[in-house]
């Protein structure tokens, strides 16, 4: 079977293009993809925005004391993220709640909407996740220096470690600090992209009569896993942002 997979064109049956789903192309007409071109990615970004608007604005338009179903979903996410920020960063982190909530709902809705068949998954693109990761990282680092000035660097200087170890620890701390955005963006993009590739590969096998029952069962199983991954990755990204924000607000351990 692997041989078939390697030479799909000659056999004519199995065709594997698991990466084609990530191709960016203009949504209307043809042509080059310029930075302003409305692409399939733009369309799905718009759908994500509309879904967020539907859940958070239309869902809560009744302002009901006893919430409707959609309103309680919004309230659940609100309470979840609010409590997360309060628990991790403390009371003074609460004023960054809208920013973190924006990150969370974008990643969550992007991950879940990407699970709709034939959809496009923005969070599987490294350019998108790197923008999120490095953007947050730069913003949090600037915030740390604005709040604490040069004493923000004490974050890397373990004052309770033995003196001769402190420079070594400081180097390691700086490296681990600088790796944070990389791990943030690769974790999210890698997880989502890998899940979609695996789904596509199983879907390719489903065209083969012998393998199709197993392949379809596999798709169902992987799809369930991907639903978990979609939620967990949004959660992990957000909670790490909260932890980094805590470092910026309280660098003195």
């Amino acid at each position: 079977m692997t041989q078939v997979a390697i030479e799909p064109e000659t056999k004519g049956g199995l065709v594997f293009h698991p990466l084609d789903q990530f191709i960016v192309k203009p949504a209307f007409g043809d042509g080059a993809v310029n930075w302003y071109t409305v692409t399939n990615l733009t369309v799905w970004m718009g759908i994500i925005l509309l879904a967020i608007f539907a859940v958070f604005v239309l869902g809560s338009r009744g302002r009901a004391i006893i919430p409707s179903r959609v309103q309680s979903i919004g309230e659940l996410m609100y309470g979840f993220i609010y409590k997360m920020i309060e628990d991790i960063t403390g009371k003074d982190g609460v004023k960054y709640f809208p920013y973190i909530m924006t990150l969370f709902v974008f990643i969550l809705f992007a991950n879940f909407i990407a699970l709709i068949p034939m959809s496009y998954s923005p969070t599987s693109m490294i350019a998108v996740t790197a923008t999120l990761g490095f953007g947050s990282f730069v913003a949090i680092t600037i915030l740390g220096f604005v709040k604490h000035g040069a004493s923000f660097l004490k974050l890397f200087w373990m004052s309770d470690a033995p003196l001769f170890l402190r420079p070594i620890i400081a180097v390691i701390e700086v490296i681990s600090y600088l790796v944070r955005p990389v791990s943030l963006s690769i974790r999210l993009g890698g997880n989502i992209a890998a899940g979609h590739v695996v789904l596509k590969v199983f879907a390719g096998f489903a065209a083969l009569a012998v393998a199709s029952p197993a392949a379809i069962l596999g798709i169902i199983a992987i799809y369930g896993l991907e639903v978990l991954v979609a939620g967990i990755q949004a959660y992990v990204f957000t909670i790490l942002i909260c932890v980094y924000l805590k470092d910026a607000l309280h660098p003195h351990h």
Partner: protein
Amino acid sequence: MATQTNTIAGACVDAGGSALGMPQLCAEWMPNQIFWLIVTLIAIFFVMSRIALPRIGAVLAERSGTITNDIAAAEDFKNKAAEAETAYEQALTDARAKAQEIIAKAKAEIQADLDVALQKADAAIAAKAAESEAAIGEIRDSAIKNITEVATDTAKELVLALGGTADATTISAAVNARMKG
């Protein structure tokens, strides 16, 4: 896939419309992705911070306020219920005491009535008994007298029949002596 025409061929897509390498790493598309991501994030941020979050926050605050008030009201009602229960218990105890009192009083009254009636009855019985005794005594006296008379007469006749003579006084003395014996 094969039917797709070659319209978007570039550095990252081959003539058949398939990806060359990983589309994630295609530098040609990155400005587009980053631009639209930033547009979307700004839009989401405004939707969240201007409309959704204040609204949901207000609803949650209002709800927790309502719940706090309701709990306080419930606490109030609970206290009132406890008070009412105490009052009820008190009333019940009072009623019991009063009932005991009434029962004791009634008993005493009945006892007094009973005593009076008993005394009356005793007196009546005693009177009746005395009366009866008198009657019996009379009857006995008259009986004795009759017997004496009959005995005297019989004795006189017997003496006469036997040919003797006897005066009345001797006979009655003899009869009397016999009657006593």
